[in-house]
């Protein structure tokens, strides 16, 4: 009996030892894991007048390598770590790594002078060769793994041809370092917004020597090399990231923060509690969230810490233009005219969204000001009686007597379900039709949408760059994001015309006409509302800005208590 008990004890001890062995071995090899404790300590008592800014990313960034990035969590971190040839300041592209930019008459050739005091965090100088290497690396069809956002570089001559393996070699791609400080770029089409594109993360440089020697350079803080206002101090995977100012940044005089602390909290209520207890200085978009019930209350109470602004992003429904009866324009128009968008934003979403009657949202440049101010949105009017008439006509044209029951599908999460239910209810009330609302798992939903296996499906589109084109060229025939089957020869031509010219008035006119065809004439999709950015900001946080598309800039922020 004693022997048995001893054996039992040994067994328990051995089990614990084996299990903890698994853990300890790894913490030894992984510096990221070890820093977790120290960081939290600093963060929790760093709430004083220290220049520390703390926000929530909600999840681990999938990558911190400019070539592999495609999401907002990564870009939120990277906007502190990297800097392109230009950077955005108050909505304008200003010179950053480039100290001078020359553009040819026809708008096709750009010559950049790299600033001589630009440095990498390992001490190397940032050269034109780094830019050439970085862009060509992103375009490499055999990169490990290939860059999903490579197409953001397709404005460059032969970039698409090289990336897709259709005819161009790497040497034919229109980017070339003439010497250490001179970079020449040739474009495919004149692109008036190219200077602001250069601030986008796919256009960041990488350190040629570091990256070519170690493909996994961006996986850990220890091997990470960047050129922006901050450098990566620690990356405790799935837990936290800390940035500290880069001492050799050319503009370090403007950098006031001593640390940026990112946490990765997936639960909105936890984020909210952390904001209450001053463990976070910022809550909500772009990478966090404010619980839905709480947001409505904050807006109602006019809470002074709540900052609300429009976001260049449109929430809309896709009609399957290839499926009966949604192939009929009158049916599509009837559905679009039979809902009350004002009621949806005021009673359902309740987050200061704006009812949408066009596709291009406010905040996108037109000729002199905002495209949405310059171009009418009277493509259609909400009118249930007229809608009912159109529906009957449309169904008759399709040889149908009544609207068949159909499915309105949306993915889980956010306000998709309440919005869908409200709309289904309005359709039922105003048109007397039955709609089945259906939650679909995210990837299944995307698969269905791409393969046109739906009737009506939720969709959303945010800007990639500040030009209406980011909303217009997606609807060309066979476009990669045209998940509706919409196809219109005149539309395709207008997009081509707009590509070919650098005359902004002509471009805007063409794109306005295209939008008229998309919404006014065809109602290929049904706009619902333009999104908003809602954030909670502690009053002592100064100079953190959110741009037109909802991206945050904390690089010039400071704390004033």
């Amino acid at each position, binding site marked *: 009996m004693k022997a048995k008990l001893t054996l039992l004890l040994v067994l328990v001890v051995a089990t614990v030892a084996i299990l903890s062995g698994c853990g300890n071995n790894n913490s030894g090899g992984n510096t990221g894991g070890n820093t977790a404790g120290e960081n939290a300590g600093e963060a929790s008592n760093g709430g004083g007048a220290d220049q520390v800014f703390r926000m929530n990313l909600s999840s681990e960034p999938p990558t911190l390598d400019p070539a592999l990035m495609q999401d907002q969590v990564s870009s939120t971190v990277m906007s502190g770590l990297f800097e392109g040839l230009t950077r955005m300041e108050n909505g304008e592209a200003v010179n950053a790594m480039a100290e001078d930019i020359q553009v040819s008459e026809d708008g096709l050739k750009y010559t950049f002078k790299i600033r001589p005091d630009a440095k990498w965090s390992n001490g190397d100088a940032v050269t034109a060769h780094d830019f050439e290497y970085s862009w060509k690396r992103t375009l490499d069809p055999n990169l490990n793994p290939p860059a999903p956002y490579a197409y953001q570089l397709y404005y460059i001559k032969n970039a698409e041809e090289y990336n897709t393996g259709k005819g161009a070699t790497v040497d034919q791609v229109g980017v070339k370092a003439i010497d250490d400080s001179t970079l020449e770029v040739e474009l495919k089409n004149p692109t008036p917004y190219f200077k602001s594109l250069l601030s986008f993360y796919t256009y960041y440089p990488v350190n040629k020597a570091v990256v070519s020697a170690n493909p996994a350079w961006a996986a850990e803080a220890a091997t990470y090399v960047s050129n922006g206002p901050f450098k990566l101090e620690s990356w405790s995977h*799935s837990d936290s990231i800390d940035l500290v100012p880069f001492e050799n940044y050319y503009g370090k005089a403007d950098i006031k923060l001593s640390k940026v602390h990112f946490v990765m909290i997936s639960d909105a209520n936890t984020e909210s509690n952390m904001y209450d207890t001053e463990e976070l200085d910022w809550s909500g978009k772009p990478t966090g969230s404010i619980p839905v019930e709480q947001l409505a209350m904050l807006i109602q109470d006019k809470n002074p810490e709540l900052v609300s602004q429009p976001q260049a992003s449109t929430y809309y429904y896709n009609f399957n233009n290839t499926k009966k009866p949604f192939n009929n324009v009158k049916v599509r128009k009837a559905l679009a005219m039979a809902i009350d968008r004002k009621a949806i934003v005021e009673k359902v979403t309740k987050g200061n969204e704006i009812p949408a009657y066009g596709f291009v949202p406010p905040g996108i440049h037109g000729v002199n000001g905002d495209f949405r101010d310059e171009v009418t949105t009277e493509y259609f009017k909400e009118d249930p009686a007229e809608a009912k008439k159109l529906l009957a006509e449309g169904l008759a044209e399709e040889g149908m007597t009544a609207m068949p029951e159909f499915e309105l599908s949306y993915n889980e999460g956010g306000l998709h379900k309440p919005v869908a239910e409200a709309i289904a209810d309005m359709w039922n009330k105003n048109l007397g039709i039955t709609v089945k609302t259906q939650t679909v798992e995210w990837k299944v939903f995307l698969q269905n949408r791409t393969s046109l296996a739906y009737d009506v499906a939720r969709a959303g589109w945010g800007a990639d760059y500040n030009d209406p084109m980011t909303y217009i060229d997606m609807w060309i025939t066979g476009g990669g994001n045209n998940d509706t089957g919409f196809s219109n020869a005149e539309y395709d031509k207008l997009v081509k015309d707009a590509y070919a010219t650098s005359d902004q008035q002509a471009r805007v006119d063409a794109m306005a006409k295209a939008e008229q065809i998309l919404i006014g004439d065809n109602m290929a999709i049904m706009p619902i509302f333009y999104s908003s950015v809602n954030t909670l900001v502690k009053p002592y946080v100064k100079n953190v800005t959110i741009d037109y598309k909802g991206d945050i800039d904390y690089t010039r922020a400071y704390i004033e208590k």
Partner: protein
Amino acid sequence: MFRYVLRKSVNIVLSLFVLATATFFLMKAIPGDPFMQEKNVPAAVRENLIRYYGFDKPLWHQYLIYLKNLLQLDLGMSMRQQYQSVVDIISRSFKYSMQLGLVAIVVSVVVGIAVGLIAALYNRKLIDRLIMLFATIGIAVPNFVLATLAQYYFANKLRWFHVAGLHGPMDYVLPTLALSVLPIAFIARLTRSTMIEVLSADYIRTAKAKGLGSLTILIRHALRNGLLPVVSYVGPMTANIITGSVVVESIFGIAGLGKFFTDSVSNRDYTLIMGITLFYAAILMFSRFITDIAYALIDPRIKISKKGG
């Protein structure tokens, strides 16, 4: 004994193989893939990705490649977390889940048995009824409700603890509470009911008649038999708790393993789905294995070597 261990081990390996096969084909049968996003990537870029990950090969071929790597204990790289290996992701998150889990298990077992024992000794008295009332509540209240309330009250309102994170000893209190209330309630009920039965058994009366002290009787005779059902519950519970709870880890912002059970599937991070499934299964089987042996050691009626399995 040795033959038993050998046989069990072979069983575990075979089960893992069957599980790997089933998971691989089921996972590939779900629509969608790791590259799908709200914004579609162009078809040509997509092809580059599909070729890189070998998804253009026939399914059986992909399966054989996976098996070959698995035999070399290579679980591959995550398809979502770039340049992070599945082994790294699992081991560093398991560290958090396990540290928290072990604390929760010790608390559950100690408190659960103690409370159950008290209830049994005061059978049908007020204290017994109170304990059982709390145990019923503990089983009925879901842990996310408890976790949310505890976080709001103790961390946000009273500021006794950090809201989230697992960086100091105090940070263990709230998540441990959330994790262990259910097992405590369960163990308490189990202990109570078996102890009531055991305490009225003949051999206990004999022991009393022999004039042994009540504490000796309780510990050396009663508890030994009374704990058998608890042991069989603690095994699988251990596997569950140390591999992390999705809910508790997400509420308390713990960088543990829990969230990957759902996240890996919703991201279609194939290599991580496989890795995490196999890891969980291995832990579960291992803990059952340990339970079986422990059971035999405690219960004089079971003799593994003779039973042969």
